[in-house]
């Protein structure tokens, strides 16, 4: 019987059908291809919680509301990758990257391919963002994934309105998942809500830390000094991952103004 089960698992794995099952065949650990590895954040507590980092060859998500620390976390991920000598790409759909922040986070800017989405001519906080710009950004992301061998490919649509994301064809994310599958690239989608995680990927929910330990709200995680804004007290938790054992462990983090 064990032999038959092993043969079945091997056959499913060969056809890449094991990832479609509800539970991982490989056990309790994260669904990581050992040959591909992980992309760590270089934050000990978070990496320990994630089993080493975000899995390569998968589409993962960094989600959270505005001022939840997702950009700081993304820049840290990019910085860690460039420190390892990897090339990274950031598809900045709304052209909102602050280069000084990236440099302060330690991103080796020479190794960062920054693709800036077209800014809407009319000023607006994404209200007037046309669909074409969003689709262009998705196509740019697909091109980068097709080129291959980037360490991290991040698609930043954090400030995009939900309608713009919803208007994208459903197959968009599936296509990106297929493109990244089997490659040594970690694809990260930054947004406000989970939309596109692949089966083996992770979804990290970011939020401000509350006094009672809950995620977010109000000003409790915002630290103001006597004269200066000092930073945010945030926390992240894995909200969707097939390897998660159901524990709701939050990882407290802190952002500090340079």
């Amino acid at each position: 019987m064990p032999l038959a089960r092993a043969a079945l698992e091997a056959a499913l794995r060969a056809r890449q059908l094991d990832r479609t099952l509800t539970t991982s065949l490989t056990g309790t650990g994260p669904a990581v291809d050992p040959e591909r590895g992980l992309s760590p954040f270089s934050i000990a507590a978070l990496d320990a919680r994630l089993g080493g980092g975000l899995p390569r060859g998968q589409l993962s998500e960094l989600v959270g509301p505005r001022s939840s620390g997702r950009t700081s976390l993304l820049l840290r991920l990019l910085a860690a990758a460039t420190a390892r000598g990897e090339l990274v790409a950031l598809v900045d759909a709304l052209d909102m990257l602050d280069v000084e922040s990236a440099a302060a986070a330690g991103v080796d800017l020479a190794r960062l391919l920054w693709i800036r989405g077209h800014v809407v001519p009319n000023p607006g906080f994404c209200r007037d963002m046309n669909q074409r710009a969003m689709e262009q950004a998705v196509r740019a992301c697909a091109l980068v994934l097709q080129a291959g061998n980037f360490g991290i490919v991040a698609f930043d649509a954090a400030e995009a309105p939900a309608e713009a994301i919803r208007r994208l064809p459903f197959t968009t994310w599936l296509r990106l998942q297929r493109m990244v599958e089997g490659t040594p690239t970690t694809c990260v989608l930054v947004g406000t809500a989970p939309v596109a995680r692949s089966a083996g990927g992770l979804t990290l929910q970011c939020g401000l830390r509350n006094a009672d330990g809950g995620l977010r709200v109000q000003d409790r995680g915002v630290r103001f000094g006597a004269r200066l804004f000092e930073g945010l007290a945030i926390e992240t938790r894995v909200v969707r991952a097939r390897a998660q054992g159901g524990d709701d462990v939050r990882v407290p983090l802190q952002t500090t103004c340079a």
Partner: protein
Amino acid sequence: MYACLYRPPAPDQRSASLSGERGGDWDAIARDYSPRYERHGDDLVTIDVAGLDRLLGSPRAIGEELRRDAASRGMRAHVAVAATQTAARLLALARPGLTVVPRGEEAEALAPIPIGILQQYFERQTSDFKLQTSDFRLQTFTKWGLRTLGDLAALPKADLVARFGPSGCQWPKIARGEDRRPLVPALEEERFDGTLELEWPIEGLEPLSFVLTRLLEPLSTRLERRDRGAAVLHVILRLTTKEEHARRLELPTPMRDVRTLRTLALLDLEAHPPSAAVDRVAIVIDPTPGRIVQHTLFARPHPTPEQLSTLVARLGALMGQDRLGAPAVVDSYRPGAFAMTPFKTEHGSQKSEGRSQKSEDSVCPDFRLQTSNLSQALRRCRQPVPARVVVTDGRPVRVTSDRRTFAGGAVVGCAGPWRSSGSWWKSEVRSQKSEVTSQKSEVRSRETPAAQTSDFGLLTSDFRLQTSDLPWNRDEWDVSLSDGAVYRIFQDRDTDAWFIDAVVD
């Protein structure tokens, strides 16, 4: 083993003209014996004759054969055969007829030659190592009383270095006939081009891609055989209107992959399409030495330069050339200032780069030491969002905007103000800005109070985007709102208008 042929100056004018006519035969003679030969001026050629002993016999037989061959072509030549190029060259310059020196006896053979021969030697020196100020050195040697190469070879090396510097030790080596560099064979300049006349004119890019592939494939094969890569790709299209549509692609790295070259050419033609149908396609490649890449087993592979070049070209066609690259920090206090640099297609190993960077740039944090502290990031609004701000006791207490995605709300906490200004010394842009300010004043007088702020914002932000040299003068605040978000807002001190500049995230 090397053979050197030297054509001495002709004794009379008639012979000189005869020799001049046949000067091109030097290459022909050398090619007949070996593909490895090097020209030194018009009258001296060194040939690598190693291996010819099985075909022609002893070194003397090889020398005789060379001399006979030159004579049969009507050329009078000095021939020298020696184990080193330098010895063969000096002997050919100094001695008429045939000179053959057994291996290991070069120094003895060169010893009686007058030191003045070095003048002729250096006149024909074309390599990178040309002893500069050789005239001065030779005069010095003469003043020292040196007469022959043997005298020069006998000088103590340490004393020469003490007087002439590191290059001083090269002189005795030359006098002993020792080689300082290997032979650099002369190769003919090879043209890498191809042309295809089309039976029927082509209008679309898709059929053109097949033609380009057909032209590029043999060129790529030839480049590979010569260990060359394409540095510049010229695509010349003759149109049915008898005009020529020429495109020049400077490639970031030497490459010869057909698919990459074809894709780059097509993307360029897509951006700059010909004005009429094409009836002839020509490709010319400027070659450059091939790229040698040593991959490592212990680091993750990077995208190859070919992949990156294609990717950058594709992204440029999709997004626009100015929308991608590597960001760079600029030396300015202007909020949100940055520069875009072309994304390099070749990246060295992190180890070698990292060492130098670490010592120079202490900003880069050591990730192993940091645990849970993140650097606070901002999300910049390239066009600041006009906002309505209620100020009480000099501090903002409520921030709202017309933007649907930005609800705003009461200020829960704030820090500031931080005054920032710059570029005020630029008078031209300052006067332009004053014009804009006057326009805004007109707008303010016409519009309702609710719209004033927005229009202010439109004008100011548009103007700010057009030129980055505009002066700025503002008070910045970091505010935490009741909707849970933290923003960086500022008040333009010239117009008193408020804007949202960035989201703290």
